[in-house]
């Protein structure tokens, strides 16, 4: 069965500092990988996705993530955090299949941004 681990429940960074949120997955092969963000009162918004190809993927809002097969990781990064990035972030995996299917999520990481 596939699973996702986000080791950090809560992270605090200063505005303008760099950010890295960790995500490790367990899956029999290379899954599809996603990062979502949830701001208060909002639904989950897809930040970026990895299906295949270049292991460094760019997303919206200046985020990027790198797929490392050897480490079963898909960490999310941003070079300079803005106060509006304060939110909860979820890593998810989907089964590599031709038709759509469920995603498996991690517990989420809450990001606080200090002024």
């Amino acid at each position, binding site marked *: 069965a596939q699973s*996702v681990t986000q080791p950090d429940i809560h992270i605090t960074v200063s505005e303008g500092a760099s950010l890295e949120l960790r995500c490790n997955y367990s899956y029999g092969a290379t899954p*599809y990988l996603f990062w*979502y963000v949830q701001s208060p*009162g*909002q*639904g*989950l*918004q*897809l930040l970026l*996705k990895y*299906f295949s190809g270049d292991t460094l993927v760019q997303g919206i809002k200046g985020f990027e993530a790198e797929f490392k097969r050897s480490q079963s990781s898909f960490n999310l990064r941003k070079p300079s955090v803005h106060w509006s990035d304060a939110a909860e972030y*979820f890593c*998810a995996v*989907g089964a590599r299949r*031709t*038709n*759509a*299917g*469920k*995603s*498996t*999520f*991690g*517990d*989420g990481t809450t990001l606080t941004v200090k002024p």
Partner: protein
Amino acid sequence: EAGVTQFPSHSVIEKGQTVTLRCDPISGHDNLYWYRRVMGKEIKFLLHFVKESKQDESGMPNNRFLAERTGGTYSTLKVQPAELEDSGVYFCASSRDSGLAGHEQYFGPGTRLTVT
């Protein structure tokens, strides 16, 4: 285009009562998913519709939960009778039914269910 909408945004009911949650997916999205987040834990899959058919209902916790998607448009999730452990946020998501785009799920804002 309008996003995924869910109604109500918040519901408070007593144990033993019935609640029905509604999800309207993005127009044209054949795939519709229900997820649940309990007590700040991970978001757990409940079930997946393709049009009006249940493709995967492996995540449904028990027979107190009934999901329908008549006509392949909106979906309802009924909990009857509700128990305390059903409290949480219920998310709906939808996606197209075409190749890799089918794996890009668009989420609604969720319905927060509180059972007292």
